[in-house]
């Protein structure tokens, strides 16, 4: 099991999609793009 899968498993959730589109109009005006709406778990790796 990969780390990401393990995290999802531990959270008792399926591995979720990390693909999402959103428009930007400032932090208070975010629109979630229904075409790509999904949900994500945060990557454990940062850059």
């Amino acid at each position, binding site marked *: 099991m990969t780390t990401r899968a393990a995290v999802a498993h531990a959270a008792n959730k399926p591995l979720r999609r*990390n693909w999402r589109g959103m428009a930007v109009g400032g932090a208070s005006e975010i629109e979630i793009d229904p075409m*790509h709406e999904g949900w994500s778990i945060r*990557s454990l790796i940062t850059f």
Partner: protein
Amino acid sequence: MSDNHGTFVHQLLLGPWDNFIYFIGDRPSRKVAIVDPAWHAPTILAEAERLDVEIAAILCTHSHFDHVNAVEDLLGTLDVPVHMLAPEVEFSGFRCENLQVSKPGDRVRVGEHLEITMMHTPGHTPGSCSYRLRDGIVTGDTLFVNGCGRCDFVGGEPQTMYATLKSLVEGLPAQTIMYPGHNYGPTPTATLDAQLRENPYLRHPTVADFVAHRMDGKTPNTPLPPAPADWALSTPT
């Protein structure tokens, strides 16, 4: 989608590492520059089609593969210039068709209204570039909402990053909107003014303090991690 002075910025969250890909456009002509296309070219092209825009240029903030690994695939269908700063090309050996090896201060014009200026913002990598818009800046992995890029990867340099961040926040208007390269913060964008209050990496009084914080627990010259093996599983249906 923000819209200012006939231009717009569209932010797309894509891939396993919370990357933001940007469509920066000229509204009258519907031409856009794409910043840091990565992970899945078909999704990026589909997004362009959905937005009804024509891709006119590709802009790379730096050479790490989570920011450029869709460039080749896009060039299979697009004949557009690919911009990257010269020190980044030299550092990484990055090559592709239509590569425009650029220098700081170079400007990319898209349509009638949009002019984008390339700013050299080293620290995460030697040739990292931020793209200056009229009211905003696309910072790649230089500055995140409440964070900044790591300086322990090969080519990273925390002292240089400190100077870069200092020049950004001192040289740009406080209301400049910062568009980061990853979705690591509580909001997907922030103004520089807000970041001066809330970003801990912008609050260090000395370079020594900054370096200690940024490199805490890190090993210099760390290689980039490989792409996660399971990322393709999350391809949208």
